[in-house]
């Protein structure tokens, strides 16, 4: 378990020409929190994650991890500092097997020189064995044993998402950015994700930013909820505060009273 990171956004904006996808978002996310980021389609959630993880350069504003400014750092450099993210499409690497996919995450952290690998240096062999052992443990923990040698393109979307989460756990994140981990999978499987995510939070101890359309899931997990609308923060606070906030209801929740009712039920059962 690693120490969770604190994320600070100061006036982050991402403009595509005239379209202001993200338009001045300032946030402080405390270490170890689970923060739900919700909002209607096109409200800028994924773009904001892109700006945080370095896939997209913000038009203005700064992203700070703990006390270090992330400006100008490549995604891989941010990953090295413990900022790990998942993607909405969850394509993974179609040609690699589940085991290899997980080994790629291990490789990024335990680098072995090219020459040592080529010449079969003892430390290179030891490192490869260690990596395979670590991957084996995670495969077992996530119940992926059956798929170990399957290529990820052969898997169902649900299983691919589990593989993605397994890769994330291996990456030892300090800040985890999850982009719709339940998109494209059945409601029943999606419900199984709540305990899984909670488990990941416990195991890694990371701060989690969760972008999700499944509002009940978000409300049951998150300690803080942020509602986005047209690139801005419409409402923020604890789930109870947000649920009662007329601005949040107007922006998003109001669209579905059933969802509201269900979220109430789920979170009271929590």
């Amino acid at each position, binding site marked *: 378990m690693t120490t969770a990171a604190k994320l600070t956004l100061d006036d982050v904006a991402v403009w595509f020409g005239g379209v202001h996808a993200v338009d001045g978002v300032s946030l402080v996310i405390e270490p170890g929190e689970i923060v739900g980021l919700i909002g209607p389609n096109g409200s800028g959630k994924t773009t904001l994650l892109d700006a945080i993880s370095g896939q997209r350069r913000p038009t203005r504003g700064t992203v700070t991890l703990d006390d270090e400014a992330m400006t100008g750092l490549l995604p891989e450099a941010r990953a090295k500092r413990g900022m790990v993210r998942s993607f909405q499409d969850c394509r993974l690497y*179609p040609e690699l097997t589940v085991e290899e996919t997980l080994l790629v995450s291990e490789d990024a952290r335990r680098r072995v020189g090219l020459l040592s690998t080529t010449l079969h240096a003892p430390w290179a062999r030891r490192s490869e064995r260690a990596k395979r052992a670590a991957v084996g443990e995670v495969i077992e923990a996530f119940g992926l044993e059956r798929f170990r040698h399957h290529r990820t393109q052969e898997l169902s979307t649900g299983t691919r998402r589990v593989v993605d989460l397994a890769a994330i756990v291996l990456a030892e994140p300090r800040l985890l950015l999850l982009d719709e981990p339940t998109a494209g999978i059945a409601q029943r499987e999606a419900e199984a994700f709540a305990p899984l995510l909670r488990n990941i939070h416990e195991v890694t101890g990371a701060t989690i930013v969760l972008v999700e359309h499944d509002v009940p899931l978000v409300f049951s997990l998150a300690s803080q909820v942020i509602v986005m609308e047209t690139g801005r923060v419409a409402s923020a606070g604890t789930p109870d505060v947000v649920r009662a906030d007329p601005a949040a209801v107007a922006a998003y929740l109001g669209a579905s009273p059933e969802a509201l009712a269900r979220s109430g039920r789920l979170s009271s059962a929590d």
Partner: protein
Amino acid sequence: MHTFAVAGIELDTFTVVQGAIQGLLYGLLALGLVLLYRTTRVVNFAHGQLGVVIAVFMLKLTDELEIPYLPSLLVCLAFAAGLGALSEMTLRRLFKRPRVLVMVATIGLAEVLYLLSLLRIFSPKQTNVPFPVPIDWEIHIGDGIIPPESVLTLIVAPLVAIGLAAFLRFSPWGLAMRGMAENTDSARLSGVWVKRMSTLAWAIAGLLSAITAILYSPGRTSTLSEALPPGVLLRALAAALIASMTSYTIAFAAGIAIGIIEQIATFNLVTDLHSTAYITLCLFLLILLALAVQVGRLRRDPRTEERSSWVLGGESGRARADATRRWVGRGGVTIALLLGAGLPFMVSEGRSLTLSFVFIYAVIALSMVVLTGWAGQVSLGQFGLVAVGAIVAARLPDMSTILLLVVAGLISSVVAVVVGLPALRIRGVYLAVTTLGFALFMQVTVLPNPCWTLPFTDTDVCTGLPDQFSTYLDRPDLFGMSLTNTRDFALFALGVLIVVLLIVRTWRDRGIARRLIAVRDNETAAAAMGTPVVRTKLLAFALSGFLAGVAGACFAFAQQRFSAGENFGPKESILVLSMAVVGGLGSVPGAVLAAVYLVGLPFLLGSTGTVQFITSGFGVLAFLLYLPGGLGAVACHTGDLVAKLIQRTRAEPTGADA
């Protein structure tokens, strides 16, 4: 004559018009390439060859059968459209497969078309008769005369271009094609019959190619079969690339511009023996410039979204961990190696030199496995890197052999990284054209000229390469043993191959390959997991370049001299790319088998060069169409089968053989 000079370059109207006429033909070719790329995402290397078949047929009709020009032309154009449509129907089943596979398939198609142009039904008895021209108009510019065939080009080519533009702009089919180019799936949902449209596009491309060849052929003394050589195709590709494979207007204009620039360069360098060398250099620089200017546009292009599909489908099925299967695999490899080591003693000395070429080609094929199979970067210029290795071997004759191989590898890998730099921003066809330019540049500019003066400055650039015609390279010693004997040398080459195989296997099993594949398949996700993307991409070029350089040094020793005109060119580069593809893109044993198949079989069965070329073209096409997993998959399945048989005989101990 209206000669005028701009910045020290002399030019006159006549030269410009001449260049423009040449350029019109490049432009027409480029139009066909863009049309096919836009509608079906295929870079068609057979595009020029199709026209050659038609031109040859045209000559037969007019000269041998004495049919008048116009009826002959109509028959030929109908034939061209039919041949284009037929090509599409042959290749169609590959359109959903990785793009690189389709590209290599079109190279196979080109060779099949080449054979077609030799058939008696199509080719006339005499090919050295003048090609018919329907008009006898001439244009006088100063002292220069524009001959009738050029006047014909000047009239017809713009008309054809305008006709194509009108067709695409105003006809319903043109609209459907443009829709297809933007988004095939949406077009299909809106009721466009995509299959028929793609056949139509290929038929039109066939027409364009035929017209180009019919305009290009008159007044040329070279044999018709090579009427549109790689150099011409490269110019057309460069024009298409300047138009980022999308804009017809820009492609056509760029073709004309390239023709004019080329003509002016020839005019100014007419006293210089190396004028083609300079033109190739200029062309290579032009391609790089076009890419540099366009990088932003290419990235924003929605088409680049499908970049990964260029090579997807990679590694062919790997054996499951099962003791019997593993033993079968090891047994197969042992038998193959023993065969390789035994063969030099079973064949004549001359043949054993051939064997060493097979081993060397296998090493180059493995370098393509790393670059194309794993990293997904398509190179048409691998022999440019092999040439670098060969130069190093020629320059350092006194170095100890092992050290020399390593140095050659290292220098080649540095060059490979430089060539690969554009790949950080671009991929697929764009990179392929750049590397094709590099291969031509190495072959035409660097290798034949030990020293050349940079144009417009008085600086000499020297590779220090000894003269290619007089250099004789001694085969080296290895630990005091001389390798002069071809048998010993074949064993040495086999040894190099075995070491390279061990290295490549290590890369495959211990983390290098999976990193390359991860970055190829999903760059964003790999970066988000902390894989250094830039370094990984360049690593692929470095590793591949290293192997190519090692092979290059061996190549120089095997050949014992440089004949740059024949070797180290795009043809060889395409051959090794075919090896990687036929081997099954990413399969290590597959690549070695493909080298044996494409280089070994024709040599060992002792066929002539031409036949060898054709059989391989046919073979490649057949393989791609009917054995998509390549030789790697065939080997793997054979292994599975043998393992199963062994297990079955074990299960029934009453079996006949002990």
